[in-house]
């Protein structure tokens, strides 16, 4: 303490006595209140001990799950519901031009049929336009080569 007085004069001027008060009788009944709380906690059943404690966290978890489900439904409605599974002439031509060495008539037919089947399986309401079927029928009937198609387009 003498060191403090010499080195830190401001601090040494301040009295060290307790300058916080407490309510009257606080220490007299603290042990009683503590005992009641311990007794209450040890008597708590499964619900009070775990469910009540976990309730806020369960609510947050349920909120996240709900948001994920809502997001998934929204995604399905907005994107998957509106996909048109048909290829128009321009798209077929584009496919052929880009992948000329890999495409065959059979592959074009398979792709178109695959899209048709996907639309049917997912019960998506596709347009009833018969242009796709017409293209396939035409190719088969006329025995047309892919290069002929490109020339025509």
């Amino acid at each position, binding site marked *: 303490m003498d060191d403090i007085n010499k080195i*830190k004069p401001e*601090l040494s001027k*301040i*009295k*060290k006595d307790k*300058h*916080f*008060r407490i309510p009257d009788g606080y220490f007299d009944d*603290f042990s009683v209140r*503590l005992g009641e709380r311990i007794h209450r906690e040890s008597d708590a059943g499964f619900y009070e001990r775990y469910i009540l404690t976990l309730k806020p966290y369960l609510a947050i978890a349920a909120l996240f799950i709900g948001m994920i489900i809502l997001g998934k439904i929204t995604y399905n409605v907005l994107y998957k519901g509106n996909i048109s599974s048909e290829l128009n002439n321009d798209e077929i031509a584009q496919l052929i031009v880009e992948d000329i060495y890999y495409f065959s008539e059979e592959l074009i037919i398979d792709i178109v049929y695959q899209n048709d089947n996907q639309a049917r399986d997912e019960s998506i309401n596709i347009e009833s336009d018969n242009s796709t079927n017409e293209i396939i029928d035409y190719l088969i009937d006329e025995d047309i080569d892919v290069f002929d198609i490109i020339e025509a387009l």
Partner: protein
Amino acid sequence: MAGKTNDYTDKELLELFRNDDSKNLAFNIIVRKYQERIYWHIRKIIISHDDTDDVMQNTFIKAWKALESFREASGLYTWLYRIATNEALTFLNQKKKKYFLPLIDVNKQLAETLETDEYFNGDELQLKLQKALLTLPEKQRLVFNMKYFDDMKYEEISKILKTSVGALKASYHHAVKKIEKYLTDH
């Protein structure tokens, strides 16, 4: 009852506690024996009486649950003091996490609490000292409180905070310098 708390040594109290018939009595005596010292230690960190009461209860409830397996490597008071310190620091950390705005300073809030606290009856200088203490990091404030107000030896503080004596001396020295500067500047 208050006089009887001093009739038992810590060892006797622990033996009584380990006996189911006298467990509650033993714990009651332990609480009455150490409640004041633990209270004031927590109060100097937490400042508010109501919050101190919460932390006090948490401290002794933890002690109740862990006393059975208390290994007596340190004294009972040192052990309780350590629990109280951890609970007080946990309380302050939880208070910080409650506020999402980064600007909010818990220590600044505590200083403001002091000014209007009906349970603070210090003079102007003592209020200034408390505000100075609240500018220190929590652990440094702890060291200062234990050394300056509680007059504890560095070896005792070292057992409680699990910090070396040398580090504690340095921490205390810095704390005193910072407080002195604050008192001079304000």
